[in-house]
């Protein structure tokens, strides 16, 4: 029985926190709430080298928010009672955040526990343990014990929790003995002159790091000031506030290049006149004139041999009718304007080259000036990217590009529903596309899934997303792929993802899960697919990440621009 370290930890020790501006407690005073949260963080600060600074931004490391029931993560609340709150382990985006059930009756001042209500301080201190990387502990009385135990008036962090946090971040004593350890996030004071520092200046303005030394714990220090969080009075602490840098002049950009005039084209070749059609007067008719038979005459149709065979000598005066009416007589052939012998011959189909297929797509046809609503291949993000029949399809708005072994197909992008005609006629975009293991093509448009067997819509489709086991509230998918690493299908949307069981046709039960699992790609991706090289590529905005399946993280933090590599711009 001892504390448990989950595995994730913060890379630095001067952390920031904030109370979410959009999800505040509906029944508590925000100012008093913030002071209780600050005290809960101080419990961990006193026991380790960590420091916590409140900032007024939702970009803080630890964002505290209050929500009810389902609040678009994998841990819905359940109203008053039972589940009180939860928090995420350290990481980017949602990592470190703590969510509290707004249906609970939160107590801001510790009272004795037999009354109704739950101490916010006790629960916050526990959740911040998760935010720092600690899992639940089975030691009864430990702060990280999963069940609520109330709070003692003179609360001191139990030993089990102290051991846990000091194993991860070191203790204050070591800091006093050895000085600051490189885990401290440097305070950036940019030199005012170079333009590149403009961006770092931006960083600075976003997060002035002020080393507070909280002494609120006892609250009875002779020169203790009441806790007045950020922003502080700059006159009082001049040396902590760097001067606001004056923004440098905008750089002047060179004039746009002027394009050369269009080349004048040679006159169009004159074609011979159209041939006039042969006269039709002596074309044999296929059917005899209709004859009327009076009552006494025998009607030929009544006895079956009323059609004399050509070999039979007949004395009838009806004209000869061939037995196979659908064979037409030969018409004169027209001079073919573009037969190979004609010097003006230009083949109208792509000429197959025998060049070796290249892995990287070739340049998109530059000479085509896109139609006004067509996306510019070299300056766009993508709605979906998929490998279908070993060819790369890139979707944007209602168009798509197609890149085969010999590079870009000419005359692309074309409209998506020219290839998949049974998609909605007023299609504006697709959300996700992937080729299933059974080689059918799944195209997600909003809340619907269209399944195609090559170009043909499979009966029973489109289907609603909820039929796949996805939540009714889900508006759309961001991406879908079959992950080569384990051959399973994954759906992505917002900050969560699902694993889809192709055999059952529904997502697996213990999903959705948080996107933090796919380290480095963040939330709200545009697309993901498995390329021919067996690597996984995530797309977001105009860039992409190459993903390392074994290490479950992107190969490099910075995105690479998509246009040069995938569109050959």
């Amino acid at each position, binding site marked *: 029985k001892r504390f448990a370290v989950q595995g994730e930890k913060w890379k630095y020790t001067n952390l920031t926190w904030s109370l979410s501006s959009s999800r505040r407690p509906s029944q508590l005073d925000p100012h008093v709430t913030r002071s209780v949260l600050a005290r809960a963080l101080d419990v961990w600060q006193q026991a380790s080298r960590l420091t916590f600074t409140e900032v007024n931004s939702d970009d803080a490391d630890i964002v505290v928010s209050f929500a009810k029931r389902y609040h678009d993560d994998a841990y819905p609340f359940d109203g008053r009672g039972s589940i009180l709150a939860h928090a995420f382990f350290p990481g980017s985006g949602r990592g470190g955040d703590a969510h509290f059930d707004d249906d609970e009756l939160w107590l801001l001042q510790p009272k004795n526990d037999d009354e109704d209500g739950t101490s916010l301080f006790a629960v916050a201190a526990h959740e911040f343990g998760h935010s720092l990387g600690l899992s639940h502990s*089975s030691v009864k009385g430990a702060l990280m014990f999963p069940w609520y135990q109330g709070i003692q008036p003179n609360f001191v962090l139990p030993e089990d929790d102290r051991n846990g946090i000091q194993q991860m971040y070191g203790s204050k004593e070591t800091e006093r003995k050895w000085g600051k350890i490189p885990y401290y996030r440097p305070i950036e004071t940019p030199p005012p002159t170079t333009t590149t520092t403009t961006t770092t200046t931006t960083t600075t303005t976003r997060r002035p790091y002020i080393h507070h030394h909280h002494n609120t714990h006892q609250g009875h220090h002779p020169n203790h000031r009441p806790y007045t969080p950020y922003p502080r009075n700059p006159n009082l602490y001049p040396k902590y506030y760097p001067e606001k840098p004056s923004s440098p002049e905008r750089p002047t950009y060179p004039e746009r290049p002027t394009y050369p005039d269009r080349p004048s084209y040679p006159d169009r070749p004159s074609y011979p006149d159209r041939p006039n059609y042969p006269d039709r007067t002596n074309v044999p008719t296929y059917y005899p004139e209709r004859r009327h038979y009076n009552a006494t005459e025998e009607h030929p149709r009544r006895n079956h041999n009323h059609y004399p065979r050509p070999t039979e000598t007949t004395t009838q005066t009806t004209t000869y009718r061939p037995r196979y009416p659908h064979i037409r007589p030969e018409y004169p052939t027209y001079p073919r304007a573009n037969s190979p012998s004609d010097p003006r011959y230009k083949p109208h189909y792509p000429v197959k080259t025998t060049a070796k297929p290249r892995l990287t797509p070739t340049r998109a046809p530059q000479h085509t000036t896109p139609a006004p609503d067509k996306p510019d291949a070299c300056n766009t993000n993508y709605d979906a990217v998929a490998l279908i029949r070993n060819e790369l399809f890139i979707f944007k708005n209602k168009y798509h590009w197609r890149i085969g072994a010999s590079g870009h197909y000419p005359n692309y992008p074309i409209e998506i529903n020219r290839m998949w005609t049974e998609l909605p006629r007023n299609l504006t975009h697709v959300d996700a596309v992937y080729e299933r293991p059974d080689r059918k093509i799944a195209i997600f448009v909003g809340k619907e899934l269209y399944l195609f067997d090559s170009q043909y819509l499979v009966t029973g489709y489109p289907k609603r997303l909820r039929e796949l086991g996805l939540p009714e509230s889900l508006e759309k998918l961001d991406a879908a792929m079959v992950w080569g690493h384990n051959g399973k299908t994954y759906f992505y949307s917002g900050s969560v993802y699902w694993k889809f069981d192709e055999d059952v046709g529904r997502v697996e039960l213990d999903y959705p899960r948080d996107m933090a699992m796919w380290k480095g790609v963040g939330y709200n991706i545009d697309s993901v697919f498995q390329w021919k090289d067996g690597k996984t590529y995530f797309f977001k905005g105009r860039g992409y990440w190459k993903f390392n399946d074994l290490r479950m993280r992107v190969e490099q933090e910075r995105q690479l621009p998509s246009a040069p590599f995938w569109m050959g711009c």
Partner: protein
Amino acid sequence: ASSAAPTRSDRSTHHSKSVRSYLQNFGYLKKGQPEMANLLMGDVAQSYEDDFRIAIKTLQEFGGIPVTGEIDEATKELIKKKRCGRPDREEGDIEDGRRK
């Protein structure tokens, strides 16, 4: 008339179902186990029964109450207690079954 009033086994089945979802939510039992109702289907039921019992024992041990493997009063009280929403066992955080 008997179908109208829940029988003892119905009540225990219903009770087990809420306990099963509690065990699955907090990481003691993997989600997606076969439905409780067809427990009588041979050894699958038996192995499931074992998993279920092991999960209850693990919960009782973690919660610091007597380990019986049964859904006794202490276990019911523990399940009703207020608690954190994070699972107690984090296997669920590992993709494709690899342990950290």
